């Protein structure tokens, strides 16, 4: 009898605590990560990944929010039209998508910023990696603060359910973090990258973005006019030292956007896409004209420019006009299609405007497999922002401002301005000219709504936007900011309906 009792001890052999320790095989537990410099690099690419993946935000939802609310853009696709006619609601998928993806990037950046300092590795590499994460955090907050105003300011990694809740901060508090991140980034980032690191941020991009941040703060709604000079100085610093980073305007405007010429000298920062599996986007698919050879299946063509915008270009500016807009194109059947709003249009399936032509990929790997990089900042923008800031600082144009705008127009091979030209001679006329120049040069590059916002010209936009007129939308100050997505308010007790942006 007694000897059988020993059998009861069999369990003890099996029952050690280790058996219940959960093992992960196909993914990596966070606890075991951040040990080596290669872990730090992997985590950093994970932060970049938040820019090119997610629910197609930079190439899709952000386009909806920034490109469509313009008097020169229209759409008949319901989900896009909500933005060209200002009828979106607080549960809109684009609003929610951009919000979510920005915070995914921020949380991943916070992971790098929190954890990389404790890894024992080369200090200079450490500094660069942290600076890159800070650049992406700043870029994400810059989008958030412009689109939604003051937002929850997360500056450390979310590690538990309790960490998940934060109230809104003020726009100024958000800008403080953006400025400090970008200042650190421009100091610590390298000026050049080896070919293997193409697409990763360099110090010039941080300086350029910082200039744009100052420019934005100087405009509506913060109107911190002391920032004009800070902005101007940053742009001048880049222009004076452009050789350090190799920045230059390309000779041919069309080449800036060519798929075979990505990361060219004019590009300061762009989000990298390729047609490798899971690394493409749908920008060309959403923007190219129907049955064109420029996108998967010929382009879905969700939105386009109004004929009014097409006619705004002067005759000598056909280069930029024809690159920006696919007014005519040869379709896959070899037929010439011309944009026509009439009932018997040929090829253009319905009048969704004149298709955007800057992003073309004839060999995509699928609907979301187009390889076009999304340009965040390029040198021509720096020149135009310099001209704009210089005019504001001096309350009128000077030769430097004229020269900057001249460079951009010369490359476009269009009529060159001079200080004696009435269109470029006074503060106001120069302001009008430089604003128009931004439209001609930068349309379709995620600038439209941001420009309208800081210029404070939304009332005109809504009054003249054909889609807004059709929908009967009248101007309301609330449209200067998008509403905080309802899902955030629903899930976050620290943000109530009373904290929603005014009017929403």
């Amino acid at each position, binding site marked *: *009898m007694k000897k*059988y009792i020993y*059998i*009861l001890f*069999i*369990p003890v052999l*099996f*029952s050690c605590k280790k*058996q*219940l*320790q*959960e*093992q992960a*095989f*196909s*993914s*990596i*537990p*966070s*606890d075991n*990560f951040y040990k080596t410099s290669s*872990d730090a690099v*992997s*985590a950093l*690419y*994970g*932060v*970049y*990944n*938040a820019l*090119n*993946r997610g629910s197609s935000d930079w190439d899709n939802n952000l386009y909806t929010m920034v490109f469509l609310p313009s008097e020169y853009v229209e759409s008949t696709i319901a989900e896009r039209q909500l933005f060209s006619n200002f009828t979106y609601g607080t549960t809109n998928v684009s609003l929610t998508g951009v*919000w979510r993806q920005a*915070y*995914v990037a921020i*949380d*991943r950046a*916070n*992971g790098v910023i929190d954890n990389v300092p404790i890894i024992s590795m080369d200090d200079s590499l450490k500094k660069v990696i942290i600076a890159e994460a800070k650049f992406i955090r700043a870029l994400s907050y810059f989008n958030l603060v412009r689109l939604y105003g003051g*937002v*929850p300011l*997360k500056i450390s990694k*979310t590690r*538990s*359910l309790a960490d*998940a809740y934060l109230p809104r901060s003020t726009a100024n508090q958000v800008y403080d973090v953006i400025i400090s991140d970008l200042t650190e980034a421009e100091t610590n980032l390298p000026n050049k990258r080896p070919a*293997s690191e193409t*697409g990763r941020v360099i110090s010039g991009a941080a300086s350029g973005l910082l200039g744009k941040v100052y420019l934005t703060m100087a405009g509506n709604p913060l109107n911190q006019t002391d920032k004009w000079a800070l902005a101007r100085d940053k742009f001048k610093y880049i222009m004076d030292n452009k050789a350090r980073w190799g920045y230059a305007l390309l000779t041919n405007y069309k080449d800036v956007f060519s798929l075979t010429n*990505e*990361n060219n000298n004019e590009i300061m920062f762009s989000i*990298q896409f*390729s047609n490798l*599996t*899971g690394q493409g986007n749908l920008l060309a698919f959403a923007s190219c004209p129907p049955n064109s050879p420029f996108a998967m299946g010929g382009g879905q063509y969700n939105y386009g420019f109004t004929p009014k915008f097409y006619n705004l270009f002067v005759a000598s500016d056909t280069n930029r006009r024809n690159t920006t807009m696919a007014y005519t194109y040869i379709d896959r059947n070899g037929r010439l299609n011309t944009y026509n709003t009439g009932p018997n249009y040929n090829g253009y399936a319905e009048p969704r405007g004149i298709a955007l032509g800057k992003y073309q990929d004839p060999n995509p790997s699928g609907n979301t497999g187009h390889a076009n990089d999304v340009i965040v900042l390029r040198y021509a923008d720096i020149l135009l922002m310099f001209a704009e800031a210089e005019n504001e600082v001096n309350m009128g144009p000077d030769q430097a401002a004229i020269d900057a705008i001249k460079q951009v127009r010369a490359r476009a091979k269009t009529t060159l301005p001079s200080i004696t030209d009435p269109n470029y001679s006074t503060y106001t006329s120069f302001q009008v000219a430089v604003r128009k120049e931004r439209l001609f040069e930068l349309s379709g590059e995620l600038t439209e709504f941001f420009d309208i916002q800081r210029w404070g010209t939304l009332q005109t936009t809504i009054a003249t936007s054909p889609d807004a007129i059709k929908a009967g939308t009248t101007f309301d100050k609330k449209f200067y900011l998008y509403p905080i*997505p309802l*899902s955030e308010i*629903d*899930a*976050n007790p620290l*943000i109530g309906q009373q904290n929603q942006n005014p009017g929403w």
Partner: protein
Amino acid sequence: MKKKRLLKQSKTFLLLNLCLLFSVHLLSQEKIALSGTVFSDDNRPLLGVSITLKGGKKGTFTDTTGKFSIIVNKGSTLVFAYIGHKIKEIVINNEKSASKVLLVSNFTDLGDVVVIGYGSVKKSDVTGSVSSISQKDLDKVSGSTFDLLLQGRVAGVNVTQTSAEPNGNVSIRIRGSNSISGNNEPLYVVDGYPLPTGGEASGDGWGQPSNALSGINPNDIQSIEVLKDASAAAIYGSRGANGVVLITTKKGSVGLVKIQYSARVGASDLGRPVKLMNAREFAQNWNDDQISRGLNPSYNGSSPAFPKPDSAGEGTNWIKAITRTGITQNHQLSISGGSKEFKYNISGSIYQNNGIILNSNFSRYNFKINLDNKLSEKLNISTTLNYSNSSLNGIQQGTGAVINVSGPIFYAQQSSPLLPVDAPLTTKGNNTGQVLFNNPVTTVKDRKDVTQNKDLNATVLAVYKISNAISLNLRGGTTSRNSIHQIYYPLTSSQGFNNKGQAFSNSYSSEDQIFECFLNYQKAINNKNKLDLTGGYTFQTNTTRTQNVTVTNFPYDFLGFDALQLGTSYFATPTSKTLRTLQSFYARTNYTLLNRYLFTFTGRADGSSVCAQNNKWGYFPSGAFAWKLSQEPFFPKNKIVNNVKIRVSYGLTGNQGIGPLGSLALLNVANYTTTSQQISGLAPTSLGNPDLKWETTTTSNLGGDFSFFKDKLNLTIEFYQKTTKDLLQSLQLPLSSGFGTGLANLGSIENKGIEIQLSGNVIKKKKFNWSSSFNISFNRSKILNLGPKTYLLGRAAGSNYLNSPANIMQVGQPYGMFYGLKALRLIQASDFDANKQPTFATFNGVQKLGQWLIQDVDTSKVIDDGDRQIIGNPNPKFTYGFNNDFSYEKFHLSIFVQGVYGNQIMNLNNAFIRSGLPISNQTKDWLTNHWTPANPTNDIRYPSYGTGITSLTSGNYFLEDGSFLRLKNVTFSYDISKIGKVIKSGSVFLSATNLITITNYSGFDPEVNIYGQANNAVGIDLGSYPRSRTYEMGVNLNF
């Protein structure tokens, strides 16, 4: 000695028989040369009855005619034993003492012993809520999988075959649903082995998984027990909250070799077709719609594709075109028998089911061995081996998706009858609004979708009797599944056309190991008090692996998924491996006091790897008390009530809701790119929760067992109340956290109900028998708390088209209520004011006559998401089953009726075929009844043309009554006595399944859910596989 025994085992049982005969000793006492015949109570001679001398080893068996002879001492006692019959003892006084022996069948007593976890008890001693189904009931039911055997048979168990496809998915809810995010299906325990949660290789995201338990052959099952309350299920601790289904397979029994062959062959057809418009009606309706919108009618005879309605004729009946007469067949051969030392049961079977939709079929091969070796008086070893190999040729059905990827049944309902059966993909002028025409016939014929599962279960159980009171049990076993799911979309399908051929080849494997060690202690104290203790330890691990391969761009179609290398575009191949470990200690005490007060205490401690760091162990105690009132001295002797037992129980059980890795913070692939290559990156994918734990269900149960008229009528009534707390929820986090959701334990839910089970022998005469059983169960659920939110919306019904959730979990409401817009009636001319302006809230100002008039809940004057409300209930008010068995001499008739009452179904097919949308063919009843100026009906089922955007939102206009009463099975059989020298006995039968279904439901069948076992999308029908009506004939033969 040992050698001798082993030798014996290897011999056949005839030899054994002889051995026993020759070992008869001649003793000095007076000998009687006895001979006789053994009959069953229905007068059939019984073969292989074991006859032994009481207290001795001597014995014999009856021969094929039931005859036996033996020499015994006068005055000795012979024991007659035969499976399924009561043991009989006869004292031998002379040669005639046993000339005709009648063994009484103990079918009613078979349930006498009830299997419970880690042991068994006499039925009369059960304290918890346990229902059982005996072999007698199981034998009558035809079903491809064992879970269907349960349907309608047990009170409190609601079985829904969510897909009627061959081997379609089945959902079982025992006493309602306890969990919102976790699993609600019961734990299955086969011969003591708790099976891991079923899984199989994934498809391409469209369509339901097939039945995960298909590896178990229903013909191999001896009995099924369902443990319903906490007292019964607590022995399975963290896996017991949804109830436990114990399956006992057939074992060998002492007797001569018994060879059984059974076969059934059947034909099936579409039980309840949905009647759609023909070509003439379709063309006329299309024209009428266009005229109503001020357009010129298309069907005007201008081209052969657009004939005038009158010359369009009948056209194609697409439903008919994709259906056929299904053929099922099932063959089983089993050999069983054994001696006291060695018993065996070996069976093999083939099951084939060619479904009523073209190209849908299922086949399964089963092989099973059960061996019992009594190695010594103390040691018994049982070995079980079960192998199953099944293959399903599926069609896409009930996917919930509409555009491009819907199944053929959806297309068949929708497609224009004007198109010919062979209309190609590129057909212009198809009515679907899509550029490509998904021909339903081509869709079923050309698309290949094969799931192959191989299941192996091997278990060894050693029982060692340490003493008369204590036995030690050691069980070791393994269960493994290998599953491959392959799909190929050819160029003739739109999916294949867009991807130039698309192949999926996905695999899944699961390996499960168990080691158990438990002791049973039984002690009777002065014949009136009894103590029964069980306690032990279990260690179980489960490893799963998956790999999913997708390839597109095929130069040729005909090799499909068997030649993936032909495709030129490869996608990343996700692989995964998970490991789940469970360690448990458990104990149960049954104490019987004075033969009438019964106490049970059960407890289990489960330690699990999937639980979070701070909550690895969960504890699940329970207690029960039963009182055999009728045993009390004061209980009046009477002729009516002969047995009364009252049972109460209370306890905790858990739910295995957490998946592996659920509590961990993890990083996964997040690559970046340069123009030419990917750069590997990693990023957090889950937040983790170090406090995650089991959902815990507290159950109270009150039951009563009553027998009347000397056990002729038996009644069981149970009342229960369950509260599940710490509901596992995927909590919506503020997106500003960087995460969308986090797993947390939040909220609670309640289920309470009543179950009544009534059975009895209505008539029991010598020649004529009528026995009957009826059960009915009522369950009411209520969501008590959901943490920070007051409601959770379900998944979007109709995943890419009807993009709104149809179900809601709301505090204070029952589980999974239907949610959506509510149409009050149809818009009539009187709803517009003098200026022709609507006086009701509209979507976008363009509501027209005859369309749905939606209730403006938030009085915003605009119909939008804010006007959604609770509109219906997918939970039945009650479910029931009613079985009747009649027998007259050798004829038997069994009639089984089953049904549910009071539930609703969201029939999303109606969004297309009963909404007037010209994009789809319409039903005939819509055509006759729909709103027109001449027929200003207010029936929301029959709106006018083009209901507009409303049809995209779930609403009461798609709800239908899902109640049904089904004549589930009718079987008529005839017993064959001996035929020639080979066939000793048997039966032939005719059987019909799903013969008649009485329901108001307009779709194919009200027993449906396209989202299978999903918790957040209940009672939804869209393009589901139609249920068939099956007629079978078969034989059972004993050799």
